[in-house]
């Protein structure tokens, strides 16, 4: 009896403990999921007050509906937005009261030979409009003739005009431009031009010039009126105020660490800024800033932000310009609402340890378009998190109970093979085959195959570039591939003063050569490797011809000079448009061949993803939604837009051909005499040269098409294999070990790795 009682006691103890354990574990799971959500940058867009979750809901208003082309836009102090545009071929300043449909128009008097260049504000909220006049072509070797600033009240009255006289006359039109325009409480004007800040007296004379030495991303007035420059210096990104007495910049007294972003003076706080898609507000005395929202959650692309403000009633207003399109300008008004009042969509989670600008663009576009699904971003870690830690967080999350739905393959440390082996990624072939609109045969086949393994398709790159080596036909011939021996022969045929590639070191060459020829050494499918052959030794010897550290000669000839006078033989670049192809032809100064990387077998042209390339998580509960996102970027409409602005070549054949047609189409303008003149389609400007690119020839387009069709997938070398090779090769580069010893050690260690993966 007594024994039975004891057992019953033990049993109840065990049951209660197991129950509490189960509850605890349930709690763990819940907590984990919450924590994951908390780690999302998007989470900061919503908040919780009195137990109720709030979100910012956006209303969008396209400003292009009011005029033909918008050159500048900014928010006024009276809950209105000002924008400069053309209407009936006249420059008009528009003022739109936010919340009202009516817009006021104020025609601008633009003097002959002057162009509207920039727009800014003074301390009282009056508008400053900068005008510039040029001598010669402003886009090719012209100089500045004059700079004027007009101050206009919010109701359109011209208050004063500042004529800078000869202050900026003869400045190079390519390096002098008005990026920011301000006036402080004392009436001093501030002009920001690239790397320099000019402070002007009220009579237009220059009070001082402050050369910063780095590009200034923002010049703005803080709440207290201090003028602050934001730029990336040698010690990282920093905010420094203009010190008029010292005629220089001085650091702001704050413990907050800033990164690249868009900065403004706040209305309730010192600063309002956007950094990594999140809108922050802070006072300089704060220990850390307050996150107000994540723009992505409100379907706003933070990369397109021109201006934003927080209104006293809590609304947040933003103006965006889509540079990848024809400059579509949009006003967004964000109102805080209870989440329960907002129509709910099914959530898809996109995971990455870094969110590139094109992903943000695609997610925002998809969220705006889709009525059923909404993508939330789960970005691992923040600015203070080490990369390794971010990768570990992501890898752990991929196998967790609440994994993401969408995996960004460009920012996933695990290779596609490892993801397949772990059962993490889903074959999207059934979704592709079941889709009524997306037909495989409509897409460039070899690009479609880039993420195909064993007949299963795991991802599709909507947009891509071709990674290649470029050389003069007189040096590399006209073939479409070459070998390492041929490249070494070219190197040997030139003197020691001739560089084969600019600023490359032995590790770069080792990596490049091993990547291009990895299939010769490593057979991952069968788990074998052979580094004992002559090919690998040849690569080591070739890489050893390059210095350990690339020497950058600041005073040496430019890249274009070296290419044209034969001091430099090759460039290793990614080509993402026909105009880029044309630009390289110009740079070499004679016929060139995009020959690819030297290989010991197939072509050396490599496909590189240049857009959102994602895989579907096998455990996703919303696979249809993930496919919706993948197919969204493959649709005709998106494909025709993706290829613009050197964003890469579209995978849709018709969009690619459309792009080629556009590239070959001549553009004209009518000159003052009424004659039709041929004009350039785009302008390429580098530190060394500027080139106008005209319509491409059929031969140029055919060559680009051939490159695309023959390029092989970007089979990046397995990083673990390369780490071993690099580790062992150092002893050879240092002259410590023979090439045979190094090859033997690489063979030993890589074989261990391959054995493990079988």
């Amino acid at each position, binding site marked *: 009896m007594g024994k039975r009682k004891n057992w019953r*006691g033990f049993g109840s*103890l065990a049951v*209660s*403990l*197991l129950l*509490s*354990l189960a509850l*605890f*574990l349930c709690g763990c799971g819940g907590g984990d999921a919450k924590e994951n959500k908390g780690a999302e940058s998007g989470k900061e867009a919503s908040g919780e007050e009195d137990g109720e979750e709030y979100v910012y809901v956006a209303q969008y208003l396209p400003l292009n509906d009011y005029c033909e082309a918008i050159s500048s836009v900014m928010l006024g102090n009276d809950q209105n937005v000002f924008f400069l545009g053309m209407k009936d071929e006249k420059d008009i300043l528009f003022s739109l009261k936010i919340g009202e449909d009516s817009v006021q128009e104020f025609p601008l008097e633009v003097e002959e030979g002057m162009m509207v260049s920039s727009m800014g504000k003074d301390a009282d909220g009056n508008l400053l409009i900068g005008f510039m006049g040029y001598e010669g072509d402003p886009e090719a070797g012209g100089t500045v003739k004059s700079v004027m600033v007009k101050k206009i009240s919010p109701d359109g009255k011209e208050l004063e005009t500042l004529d800078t006289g000869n202050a900026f006359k003869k400045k190079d039109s390519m390096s002098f431009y008005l990026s920011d325009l301000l006036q402080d409480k004392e009436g001093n004007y501030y002009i920001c031009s690239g790397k320099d800040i000019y402070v002007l007296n009220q009579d237009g004379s220059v009070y001082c010039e402050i050369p910063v030495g780095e590009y200034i991303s923002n010049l703005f007035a803080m709440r207290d009126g201090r003028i602050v420059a934001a730029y990336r210096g040698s010690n990282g990104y920093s905010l420094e105020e203009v010190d008029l007495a010292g005629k220089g910049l001085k650091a702001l007294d704050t413990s907050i660490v800033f990164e690249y972003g868009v900065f403004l003076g706040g209305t309730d706080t010192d600063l309002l800024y956007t950094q990594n898609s999140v809108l922050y507000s802070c006072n300089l005395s704060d220990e850390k800033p307050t996150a107000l929202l994540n723009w992505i959650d409100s379907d706003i692309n933070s990369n397109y932000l021109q201006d934003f403000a927080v209104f006293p009633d809590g609304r947040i207003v933003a103006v965006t310009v889509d540079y990848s399109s024809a400059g579509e300008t949009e006003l967004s008004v964000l109102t805080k609402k209870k989440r329960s009042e907002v129509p709910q969509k099914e959530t898809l989670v996109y995971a990455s340890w870094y969110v590139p600008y094109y992903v943000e663009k695609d997610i925002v576009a998809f969220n705006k378009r889709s009525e059923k699904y909404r993508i939330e971003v789960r970005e691992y870690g923040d600015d203070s998190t080490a990369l390794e830690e971010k990768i570990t967080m992501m*890898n752990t999350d*991929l*196998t967790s109970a609440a*994994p993401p739905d969408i995996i960004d393959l460009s920012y996933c440390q*695990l290779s596609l093979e*490892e993801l397949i*082996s*772990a*059962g*993490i990624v889903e074959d999207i072939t059934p979704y592709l085959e079941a889709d009524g609109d997306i037909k495989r045969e409509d897409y460039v086949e070899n690009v479609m195959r880039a993420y195909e393994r064993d007949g299963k398709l795991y991802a599709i790159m909507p947009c891509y570039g071709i990674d290649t080596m470029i050389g003069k036909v007189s040096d590399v011939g006209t073939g479409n591939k070459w070998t390492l021996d041929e490249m070494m022969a070219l190197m040997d045929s030139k003197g020691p003063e001739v560089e084969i590639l600019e600023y490359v070191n032995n590790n770069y060459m080792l990596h490049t050569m091993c990547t291009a020829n990895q299939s010769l050494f490593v057979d991952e499918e069968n*788990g074998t490797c052979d580094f004992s052959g002559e090919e690998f030794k040849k690569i080591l010897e070739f890489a050893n011809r390059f210095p350990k550290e690339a020497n950058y000669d600041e005073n040496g000839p430019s890249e274009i000079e070296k290419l044209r006078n034969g001091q430099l033989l090759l460039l290793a670049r990614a080509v993402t448009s026909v105009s880029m192809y044309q630009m390289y032809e110009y740079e070499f100064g004679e016929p060139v061949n995009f020959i690819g990387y030297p290989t010991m077998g197939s072509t050396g042209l490599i496909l590189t993803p240049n857009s959102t390339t994602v895989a579907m*998580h*096998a*455990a996703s509960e919303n696979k249809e939604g993930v496919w919706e996102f993948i197919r969204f970027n493959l649709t005709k409409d998106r494909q025709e837009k993706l290829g613009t602005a050197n964003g890469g070549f579209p995978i849709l054949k018709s969009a690619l051909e459309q792009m080629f047609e556009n590239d070959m189409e001549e553009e004209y303008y009518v000159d003052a005499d009424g004659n039709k003149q041929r004009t350039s389609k785009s302008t390429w400007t580098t530190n060394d040269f500027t080139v106008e690119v005209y319509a491409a020839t059929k031969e140029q387009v055919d060559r680009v098409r051939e490159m695309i069709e023959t390029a092989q997938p970007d089979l990046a070398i397995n990083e*673990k294999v390369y780490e*071993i090779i690099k*580790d062992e090769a150092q*002893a050879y580069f240092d002259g*410590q*070990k023979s090439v045979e*010893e190094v090859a033997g*050690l690489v063979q*030993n*260690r*890589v*074989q*261990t*790795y391959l*054995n*493990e*993966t*079988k």
Partner: protein
Amino acid sequence: MRDRKKEPKARRMSLQIGGHGLAGKKGQAQPSAARKSGMQKRNAKSRRISTAFLAPSFLGVMLFFVVPFFVVIYYAVVNNPIQHHFVFLDNFSNVFHNAAFRQAASNTMKFSAIAVPLAVALSLGLAMLLDSKIPFKSQFRTFFLTPMMVPIASIVLIWQVLFHYNGMVNDITALFGTDKIDWLKSEHAQVVIIVLFLWKNLGYNMILFMSALGSIPKDILEVAILESAKPWQIFVHIKIRYLSSTILFVTIMSLINSFKVFREIYLLTDDYPYNTVYMMQHFMNNTFGNLDYQKLSAAAILMSLVMVAIIGILFLTENYFGKDVEG
């Protein structure tokens, strides 16, 4: 006359409990129903208190040992952590046929088979030496204990300075005209690791043996001397028998430490070292990093089975040699 009602509660309790025990022993009349009910209540309360105190530990053991153990078993019989398809023993079969696993198991076994007996024998020898009448005993003891105080990063640094391709050992051998040896990336690599293991562990083992030697009854040793027993006879027939439980403990600890030598090897040679020093922990660590949980789990179960078998054999051996001593 005492009023029982006014007696302190504690006193009453002790009397009642004493009375109950006595009555039970003598087989006299059982306590009354009221007393019995009171006792039950007190026992229940006592159990609840015990439960409350035990719960955190029990929960901890469940959470951090028992549940993960079952999770590992679960992962070992599914195809991957995402699809969870039951594959029974396929993962074990894969692991058995995996060349890297076989290499790691062979290296680990070889290492343990050499390093553990050496660690036990040398530390016992040192303990015997320090137990005898030699000068500078205290200094020697400190000398052998020093490696225990050195942080692992420093140990690795010292070993790198010594055994790197451009290290001190090669500098010294070069004086005799010998070619350089890449100690950590050659067939000699395991020798270097064994030396490192012994250097790090001898001191601790030695202290354990010295303590055990000190606890052997002096009278038995004196009787043996009086009976003209030779030193080796005293060692084999008395000391070893008394030391048997310590030998078992030191052996198990050394065995466990031999599996943990991965840490030093990893810091010296990274995650894919020369194949002679590729250990089981490398295999497990790397498969974890590659999210190959099923392979990792199968290997962990196999390894734990081997460990259980080895420790079982050690216990049986200890029982055999030490049974007459512990009586």
